[in-house]
Structure formats: C-alpha cells, structure tokens
C-alpha cells in the first residue's frame, strides 16, 4: 500500500497551510477519507506515526472522518448510500445499477488545529 506516500503529501499540505498562517505547531490534522478511496484509515495512522517526527506535526493528532459512498440513480433522480463494501451501486428503490458515484473517493485534508 501507499499510505506512507500519502502521509508525506498530507504533512506537506498541512505544513504549507500552517506556515501561511504564521503558526509554529500543528496540533491536529483533520482528513476525510472516502469508503472507496482505497485508503485504510488504520494504515494511514500507522504511517503517520512513522512520518511525523521532525515536522511541524510531530505531536499532532490525526482525526479521520470516514465518508460513505453515495451514488445517484438517474431513473429515480435520487441519491442513495452504497450498502456494501464491494462498491456495487444498486438503487434500493428500482434495483438499477448506477455508474454515477457522487461521493466516496475522497482523500482530503479538510482543516488543521494550529498554535
């Protein structure tokens, strides 16, 4: 898996944003991880533990928000949450498969807590 590389990008993004605000220390990094992003939150935390030393985030918490996968059914013109971990998007109302995934691929740094 590539969580280590992702964590390096995450710390880079966080340091850049924190510096821009004139902060010295990052106390927490809040990230959003989609159900279909392929990122395993536990692996992200493990990688963060290894990568944060010597950075502005050396003592930071990592806060992960898990974003459920949501697809859109064109027949019913409504969104629905995927009820399985296979990424199968079957509309629960009309049983039509949907290729229109609206949410669930996220891997974002949303915000930081700094000092």
């Amino acid at each position, binding site marked *: 898996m590539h969580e280590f590389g992702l964590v390096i990008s995450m710390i880079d*993004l966080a340091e850049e*944003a924190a510096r821009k605000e004139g902060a010295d220390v990052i106390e927490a990094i809040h990230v959003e991880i989609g159900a279909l992003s392929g990122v395993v939150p536990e692996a992200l935390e493990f990688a963060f533990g290894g990568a944060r030393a010597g950075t502005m985030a050396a003592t930071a*918490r990592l806060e992960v928000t898990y974003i459920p996968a949501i697809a859109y059914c064109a027949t019913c013109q409504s969104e629905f949450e995927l009820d399985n971990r296979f990424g199968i998007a079957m509309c629960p109302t009309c049983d039509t498969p949907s290729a229109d995934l609206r949410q669930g691929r996220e891997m*974002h740094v*949303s*915000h930081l*807590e700094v000092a």
Partner: protein
Amino acid sequence: MADPVATRDVRVSPHGTAVTPGARVVQVQKSLMTHNDGVAAANRAAFEGCLVLNIVSSPGSGKTALLERSVRELAGDLRVAVVVGDLETDNDAIRIHAAGAPSVQIVTGTVCHLEAEMVARAVDQLDLAGLDVLVIENVGNLVCPASWDLGEDLRVTLLSTTEGEDKPLKYPRIFKDADAVVINKVDIAEAVGFDRERALDAVAKVSPGTPVFELSARTGEGMDAWLAFVRERLAAKRG
C-alpha cells in the same frame, strides 16, 4: 520507528471530527493527490496529439502479452510506444521492443504503482509528437494504481480467466473507474473452469455500461474488437 498516534474515534460520524475547544483552526480543503493530479494534468496536455491508455491488472494477467500482440497488429499503420512499470527488471520493455515498438521501462523499486511524475520522466525519452498511441503498463496490482491519475485518456482494467470471477467485487474501485475491461486468456477458460456469466455479471454490477472485451493475447481470438475500440477512441480524440 512508528510511535503510536493519538486519535479519537476513527470512522466517526459523517458530520466531521471534533475540534478541541478554543483551538485555532486553519482550513485546508486539499486533496492528498494534489501534487500527482497537477503533474497528471500537465501530462494530459502533453499527450494532446495521441491516445494514451493506462493498463492495470493483477500480476501476470497478461498486460505485456496483450501489448505485444496489439503492437504487432497496430504497427502497420499506427505509431505506438509503450511505457512499462515494474518493481524490478526490464524484461517487459525488452518483450515490447521485440514486438516492434519503442518502449521505456520504469523500475519502481518498492513503489507498487506508477505515479504521474514517473510517467512524465519516462516520456521525456520518447518523441510524443510522432506518436498515435501511447500505452502505459502499470505495475501488476489491483489496489494502488487506482488512485493515481497518470494523465491517460483511458483506464483499461484487465482480468484473466485464471483469477476467479469475483475479482471485480473484491477490487471494485479499479473496475468502477475503468473505461474498458479486458477479459484475457479465454483460450484456457474451459480448462480452468471459468464461469463467464458470473464474471460478466460482476463487471456489470461494479461498473455498469463499461465495454468488455473477451480475448486471448496468446491465440489472438477476440483481438479485432479490442483493436477496433482503440482505433475508434483515437479517431474520436482527434475529432
């Protein structure tokens, strides 16, 4: 090395994580893929004149075999080049070269997928302006390559008859994002007891509407439809 990280409840509510009262909050709102996506966009601009395919599959599904045969059959009238990613060795690039196309090997070492920057460096060794089709063979892996945009036009996910029909259900992301799915090794489908209906059903469930090409890179069966698809998409890109 890894010291334990203080976390609160992971996989919390969809309403977001708690911020410590009184903390100074800085909004970021950036993807962890920001850097890669930027390089991929630059690649895409550089690939303006040719059709670019990114081929992904498990190790050994037959990516290189498919490319060898595709190169041989397209070479009559199209200029094709290949970039091949592998953890080790340049065997695949040598095979492609023998089939008659310029090829560049990217040895990724421990990295289990190609990134846009690796592709940017590799295509520096090719004459992009003189190309019709550029094929990128990704590292054999069904998980990691899914997240990394390389700047391709089409993502092609390969599945072979020896792998089990439920691969698409186990690795949904890489099938969901595919622009085409190739089922390879149909020559041995019967011998290995491949359940074609189940496989097609799994692809249709995870990736409805995606075209599927059933072929054998070994015997050439089914290659025509696949090659026609590539030609069609090249024509469409060139308007």
